[in-house]
């Protein structure tokens, strides 16, 4: 299509496209629910409960207060774990990417520790924090750390050397000023993408971090699974998704504001 046509019809087409997207999305979702409902009719309830049965269980869990309690407990693991892991990850990522001495010091250590999955740290979590809020938060923090470490490292590493030259020629003399006024703002898009990824991934990590007896959504899913209460399992999976959608939409809005200059 010629550029002229594109500007003439562009708005109308994108308008149609987004409307079509929403409509098709609704159709897809409805189709999924239908298949689910039909599937549930062909199977006993303990194998696959239908969507209506799940909604009933979901409402019952909310009304009994069980779900709110579990949500509160999981947030207490997720929030401090994510905050600590994100902060440390960004701080160390920026430091090693900016200072070649720090980079050389950390490089072998990073290579050894990087492949360790957060779950493998359960032993340390229990040994250091016992079975507590802190031990689950520790697992979450380990997950947040690496995501943010690499995002910050990559962001700072990609800051053009010329920005530093220009800044020095405009009178910046200290490393601290250079990092605060130039390196961090220049790397902000990557750092914020890391924060956003970390927030979502750590929320999913809650399930794993609560396997060893710390109460929360994860534990509710594990016990319900053992009791073959599939309707409860699906209810809590639904809760995780809803929380994730709210979180990610919120962070995305913040992200758009912070990197509005792009």
């Amino acid at each position, binding site marked *: 299509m010629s550029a002229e046509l594109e500007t003439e019809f562009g708005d109308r087409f994108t308008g149609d496209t987004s409307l079509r997207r929403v409509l098709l999305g609704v159709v897809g979702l409805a189709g999924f629910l239908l298949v689910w409902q039909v599937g549930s009719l062909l199977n006993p309830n303990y194998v696959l409960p239908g969507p209506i049965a799940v909604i009933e269980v979901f409402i019952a869990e909310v009304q009994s207060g069980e779900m709110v309690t579990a949500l509160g407990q999981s947030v207490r693991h997720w929030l401090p774990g994510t905050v600590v892991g994100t902060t440390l990850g960004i701080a160390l990522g920026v430091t090693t990417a900016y200072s070649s001495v720090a980079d050389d010091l950390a490089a072998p250590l990073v290579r050894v520790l990087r492949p360790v999955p957060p779950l493998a740290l359960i032993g340390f979590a229990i040994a250091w924090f016992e079975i507590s809020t802190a031990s689950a938060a520790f697992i979450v923090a380990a997950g947040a750390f690496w995501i943010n470490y690499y995002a910050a490292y990559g962001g700072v590493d990609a800051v053009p050397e*010329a920005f530093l030259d*220009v800044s020095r*020629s*405009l009178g910046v003399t200290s490393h601290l000023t250079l990092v605060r*006024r130039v390196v961090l*703002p220049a790397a902000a898009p990557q750092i914020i993408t890391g924060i956003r990824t970390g927030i979502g991934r750590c929320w999913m990590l809650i399930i794993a971090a609560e396997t060893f007896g710390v109460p929360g959504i994860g534990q509710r899913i594990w016990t319900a699974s053992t009791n073959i209460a599939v309707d409860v399992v699906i209810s809590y999976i639904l809760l995780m998704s809803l929380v994730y959608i709210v979180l990610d939409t919120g962070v995305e809005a913040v992200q758009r504001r912070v990197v509005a200059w*792009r």
Partner: protein
Amino acid sequence: MTDSRVVVDGVSKSFEGENGPVRALDAVDFEVRDGELVCIVGPSGCGKTTLFRIIGGLDSPTTGQVTLSGSPVTGPTPDLGIVFQEYHLFPWRTVRGNVAFGLEQLELDGDARERRIAEMLRLVGLEGTADSYPSQLSGGMKQRVAIARSLAVDPEFLLMDEPFGSVDAQTRSMLHGELLDVWHETGKTILFVTHDVEEAVTLADRIVVMTPGPGRVREIVDVDLPRPRSRTDGAFVEYRERVRSLIRE
């Protein structure tokens, strides 16, 4: 003592190449007097960008030295404004924010800073776009911002590397006029690196003509023409052909 603002004294630069050291610059000597506009012109490979980086304190020479107002240049300093071909504006700051950057490093009260920013924006004709981000600007406008940003901290000397190399011919000739206006108004000493002989003859008081292999000063040409200069003027054409033949020899 002379009125030399910048002295390039026996500057040589060698790089480690695959077959031993490669000499990029060989004993480059010249000076820029206070308030002068000097162009360095030469074909690619003559080491002019290497020389630009050394004069700006971004690289160090293998031998020789550069002095600015009598003191050796050892690194980038606010006494020496640098303007790059690729602008290197801070994309997260508005036009105003870019111009303010250097001023924020000085202990300046808010009013004085605001006045200085307004003065710089007026100097380069960007009052109307103060709140735009660089991504919203054309190449010519970006380079105006870069010039305003480096002049804001009042450097003794402005060093420019092919600053108008990325804009179209029409914008370039407009920017030439504006640069000359800025130069007249501020009285700055300017050293301007280019590969474009016409650009050098349009702007310069003197032209340092360089030749490659290794980079050397071939000759320094005094351009004795009144401004504004016309490219079709007979004397202009004579200068242009003379510089071109020096480069070709």
